[in-house]
C-alpha cells in the first residue's frame, strides 16, 4: 500500500495478489496472457493465409515442408524468448517469504 502525494485512497502495491493462492493468481494471469498470444498468432495466420491464397503464391504443403536457415532459426528463437517472457513473467511476481508460507 502506498500513500499518494496529497491524500485520497492509498494505492495498491505494484503487484497485488487477488486470489487466495498466489500461484493460482499467477496461473490466472498466464491463462489470460496465453489467450492473448493465441489470438495474436491466429490473427496473423488468418491474414497470411488469406493473402497467400488470394495471390496464388503458396500451398499448405510449402508451409509443412519449410526448413529454416540459420538466420531464420535465430529470428524464431528470439520471438520464442519474447513469447516466453510475455507469458511466464508472471512467475517472477509470486511472493516468497515467511508471510507467504503455506499453513497446515
Amino acid at each position, binding site marked *: 500500500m502506498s500513500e*499518494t*502525494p*496529497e*491524500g*485520497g*485512497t*492509498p*494505492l*495498491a502495491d505494484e503487484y*497485488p495478489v*487477488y*486470489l*487466495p493462492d498466489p500461484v493460482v*493468481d499467477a496461473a*490466472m*494471469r498466464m491463462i*489470460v*496472457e496465453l*489467450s*492473448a*498470444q493465441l*489470438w*495474436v498468432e491466429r*490473427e*496473423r495466420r488468418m*491474414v497470411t493465409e488469406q493473402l497467400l491464397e488470394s495471390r496464388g503464391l503458396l500451398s499448405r504443403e510449402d508451409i509443412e515442408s519449410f526448413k529454416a536457415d540459420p538466420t531464420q532459426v535465430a529470428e524464431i528463437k528470439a520471438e520464442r524468448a519474447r513469447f516466453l517472457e*510475455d507469458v511466464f513473467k508472471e512467475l517472477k511476481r509470486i511472493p516468497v517469504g515467511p508471510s507467504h508460507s503455506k499453513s497446515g
Partner: protein
Amino acid sequence: MSKVIDSLPSLARRSDVAYLDFVEGFREFILGKGADFEDRLNQALVDEAARRGQDWQDVEHIREFVQQQPLGCLRDRLARTQQEMKWHALVRSFDEQRAKLVGELEHWASRGPGDLLLDPEFVPPSYVNVHFHLQPGGYFKDELSGFLYHWGTKVFFRGDNDADQLHARLTRFVPTPADGRVLRILDMACSVGQSTTAFRRRFPEAEVWGVDYSAPMLKVAHRRAAMLGDEVTFKQALIEHTGFADEYFDLTFAFIVFHELPLRVIEETVREAARVTRKGGVFAVYDFARTADKSPFQRYHRWFDARHNGEPYSQDFCDCDFDGLLRCYGFRVDATPLGQRAGGSGYMQNWFAIRE
C-alpha cells in the same frame, strides 16, 4: 478489428495491434455482459443486504463481502490484468520506435493550423505524481506519455471512440449560453485535445483553447489537431491557475478530470472556472457519478478503481458535494444523470452550470 484513426501513432508490429485488439475485446468481455461479473456480484450484494435487513452503508463492508466471493476475487484479478497487459504492450511497442515518434512530435510542434504554447519554466505540482490508470510514468514523465494515453484510452473505450465519436457526442450535448454568444471556449485538462477539436468543429468561428499541465499530452494534442486541420491553441498551465483574464470565456468545459484531483484542487479549479467564465456563460462538466447514485457494486468498483487502477482521488470526488461547491462559487447547477440523457452506464454524470 476496430478501425484506428489516423492521428493514433502506428504500433511497431502488427502483432502489437492484434494483442491490443485482444485486450480491448477481453476488457469488453469481463466488464460487460460476457462474463457478467457486475450484475451477478451486484445481485449477491442486494440479496445479502436483504438477508441482513439493512442497506449497505460503508464501502468497507461492501469490499469485505465482495472479496469473500471467489467470483469477486477473480473479477479483480482479471480487471487488473487487462490493464497491465495494455500498458506492457504499448510501452514495448513505443520503445521500439521511440526516436521516430519523438521526431514526429518535433515535426508537428512548429506547424499549424493552431498553436502550441509550452512553458519551459513549468514545474508539475506534487499531486500529479501518480500513475493514473496505471499508465507507466503517469501523464507527464515519459516524452511519449501523450501517445500512451491516446492509445490507452482507445482500448479503455472499447472501440466506441476510435473516431472520437464519444467526444463529438458529449460536446454536442453542452448547452450554449442563453444569449447564444459563444466566441471563446476553454477545455480544461484537455489531454490529447479530442474535446478541444470537437468544440472547434461545433463552433467554427470560436477561439478555442485547450489547457493541460502535461507537455507530452499537449504535443500530441497539437499534432493531432494540426493533422486534422483544426485551428485551436494548446497552452501548458494548471487548470486551477490558467492565467486567462476574468470572464474571458463563454463556455468552459471539463471532461473526466475532477476525479483525478485532490479535494483542495477540486475547489481551486471550480473557483478558477468561475473566474474565467463570463456571467451567463456555461461551465460543463462530465465526470464520475456521485456515490449516492451508485449501486452497491458500482460503489465497490469505485473503491477498486481508486486503489487498484491509480485513481486515488476519485472516491473523495464522488463523496463530495460537488453541486454545493459549484453553487458556492456562483454557478446555477443543472445536473441530470448522464444515463437518462445520453444512454450512459450509470458511472458517469454531467453538470451543466450557468455562471450567475
